[in-house]
C-alpha cells in the first residue's frame, strides 16, 4: 500500500448555464455524485474544503448535505481555488486528521468578462477607471509577446481552439459540444489582438467534487483508486509577468506556473516525460501553448510543431485538455481546477468513453493559472 492520499470518488455536473440551480446547489450535487462514486455517505466525511469566486462560501453546502459538524474550510484563491482546497485536504489527510475528505468547487458567473474591483486585488481604483482591469488584455499581451519571442505562427491559436471544441463534442458534461473548424475560429471577431472571440472560454456555471482517502484507507465503492502523488499551490515570485500588474520588472523570472509545476513533479518523484495525459489552463488558446512549455511538458517554441503534428490530440503523444478544457467547458472559476483533476481521474480509470486516451494512461498532470499570479498543479498516477 502506498503512502499517498488517493482519490476514491469524483462527481461533476454539466458545465454551462444553469437557470434551475444556484452555484452552491451545483456544488452540493457534485458532492453527492462523488460520495456515491466512493460508496460512502456524507457523515463518513471527516474534513471538507472548497470554494467559489462568485457563488458564495462552500461551507454553506452543509445545510444541503447535512449538518454533521464536519470542519469545512472556505477557499477564495481565484483560479487556484480548487487547487488550494485540494492541497489543504491533502495535507490534513497526510496528517491523519480524517479517513475521508471532500473537496468541492463550484461557481455561477454572469455573462461577459469578469466584473472585478481593483481594490479586491490590491490595486488603486484608478486601474479599473482607466480601463486596465480586464483579464483578456493580459492574456492577449502575454501571447502577443510570446509568439514573437518564440517564432510561433498565429495560426496555432486557431488550431488549439478548434481542438478544444472537437474534444468538447466527445464530452457529455461539456458546455460547447459543436465542433468548430480552425478557419471559423480564425474568422471570428477580434477581441484583443491576436486573440479572437472563439479562442476564449466564457465564464459559466458548474460544480465538481472529489472524495479523498487517507493513505491505507480503501473506499467501499470499489473504483480503482487514483494516487494523488502531489499537489502544489504557489503565488508569484518577483519578476513573473502576471495579470493585473501595473508594472513588471525588466528582468523576467520563472513564471508561477513553472515554479508550481517543477515543485509538483519533484514532490511526485516523476518528470514531465512521464506524463500520459495533460490538463493545462486554457482560458484562451494562447494560454494552452504557453502553459505547456512553462510546466516543462515541451520546450519553448516547440508548440507549433506539437499542434501541427497532432501530438496534443486525444490519440497523440501528449493528449492535452482531453475534455475540451476551459474553452469547451467554460470557466466557473471555483470548479475549473477540480474539473481538470476529475478528467485525469476518469482517464486513468479508463472510463472516459469516447474521449478516452488510448493505451491505458498511467500518469496525469493538471495545471491552473490565475490572477494575480497564482498556480496549482497536481501529479496523479494509477495505483
Amino acid at each position, binding site marked *: 500500500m502506498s503512502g499517498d492520499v488517493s482519490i476514491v470518488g469524483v462527481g461533476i455536473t454539466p458545465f454551462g448555464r444553469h437557470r434551475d440551480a444556484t452555484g452552491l446547489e451545483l456544488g452540493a450535487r457534485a458532492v453527492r455524485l462523488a460520495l456515491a462514486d466512493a460508496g460512502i455517505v456524507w457523515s463518513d466525511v471527516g474534513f471538507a474544503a472548497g470554494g467559489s469566486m462568485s457563488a458564495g462560501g462552500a461551507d454553506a453546502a452543509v445545510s444541503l448535505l447535512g449538518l454533521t459538524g464536519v470542519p469545512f474550510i472556505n477557499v477564495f484563491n481565484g483560479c487556484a481555488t480548487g487547487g488550494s482546497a485540494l492541497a489543504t485536504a491533502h495535507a490534513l489527510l497526510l496528517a491523519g486528521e480524517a479517513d475521508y475528505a471532500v473537496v468541492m468547487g463550484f461557481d455561477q458567473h454572469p455573462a461577459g468578462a469578469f466584473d472585478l474591483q481593483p481594490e479586491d486585488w490590491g490595486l*488603486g481604483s484608478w486601474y479599473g477607471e482607466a*480601463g486596465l482591469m480586464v483579464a483578456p488584455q493580459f492574456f492577449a499581451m502575454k501571447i502577443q509577446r510570446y509568439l514573437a519571442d518564440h517564432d510561433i505562427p498565429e495560426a496555432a491559436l486557431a488550431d488549439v481552439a478548434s481542438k478544444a471544441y472537437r474534444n468538447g463534442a466527445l464530452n457529455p458534461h461539456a458546455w460547447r459540444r459543436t465542433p468548430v473548424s480552425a478557419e471559423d475560429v480564425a474568422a471570428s471577431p477580434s477581441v484583443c*489582438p491576436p486573440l479572437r472571440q472563439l479562442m476564449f472560454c466564457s465564464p459559466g456555471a458548474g460544480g465538481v467534487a472529489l472524495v479523498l482517502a487517507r493513505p491505507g484507507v480503501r473506499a467501499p465503492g470499489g473504483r480503482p483508486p487514483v494516487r494523488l502523488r502531489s499537489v502544489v499551490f504557489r503565488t508569484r515570485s518577483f519578476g513573473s509577468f502576471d495579470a493585473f500588474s501595473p508594472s513588471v520588472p525588466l528582468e523576467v523570472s520563472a513564471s508561477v506556473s513553472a515554479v508550481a509545476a517543477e515543485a509538483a513533479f519533484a514532490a511526485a518523484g516523476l518528470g514531465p516525460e512521464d506524463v500520459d495525459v495533460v490538463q493545462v489552463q486554457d482560458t484562451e488558446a494562447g494560454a494552452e501553448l504557453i502553459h505547456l512549455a512553462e510546466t516543462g511538458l515541451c520546450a519553448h517554441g516547440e508548440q507549433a510543431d506539437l499542434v501541427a503534428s497532432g501530438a496534443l490530440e486525444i490519440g497523440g503523444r501528449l493528449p492535452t485538455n482531453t475534455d475540451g478544457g476551459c474553452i469547451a467547458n467554460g470557466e466557473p472559476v471555483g470548479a475549473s481546477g477540480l474539473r481538470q483533476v476529475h478528467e485525469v481521474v476518469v482517464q486513468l480509470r479508463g472510463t472516459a468513453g469516447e474521449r478516452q486516451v488510448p493505451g491505458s494512461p498511467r500518469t496525469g498532470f493538471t495545471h491552473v493559472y490565475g490572477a494575480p499570479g497564482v498556480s496549482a498543479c497536481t501529479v496523479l498516477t494509477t495505483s
Partner: protein
Amino acid sequence: MTKAEHVDHPVLVETPDGPRLRGSECAECSTVTFPAQASCPACTGVAVADRPLGARGTLWTWTVQTFGPKAPYRGGAEFEPFGVGYVELPGEVRVEARLTEADPRRLRIGLEVELRVIDVPGVPGATTYAFAPVEEGDR
C-alpha cells in the same frame, strides 16, 4: 481655471519637465516599481522613495481593447476601442498603459512611445495617462 481631475492622480506627478508617472525606487536593491509603493516587492525592504519615471520608452507588448470594460471603467456610454501595452522604460521598469493608437496595423513590438495625459472619453474634465507613438519629427 479649474484643474482637470486626473482619473489616476495618485499615479501621476507634476515635475518641471511636465507630468510624469509616479514610481518608486528601493534604496537597498534599486528595484523600480510602478505605481509607487512603500515597500519593495523584490527584496522586502522598506527603504523606498518616490521616483518620477522616464517619459519615453519602447512598446514591449500590446493589444487593443475592443469592447467596453465593466465598472469601475469610466469611459462613458460611447465606447471607442483603445490600445493597451507594456512600455519598457530603459533602466527602470515596464509599465502598463493605455495607448493613444488603437489601430493594430500601426502598433508593433519595439515601437518608440512617449507619455501623454489624455482626456477620458465620455467623462468631462477627467484625464488619465497614456503612451503615444513618437512621430518621425519628434525624435
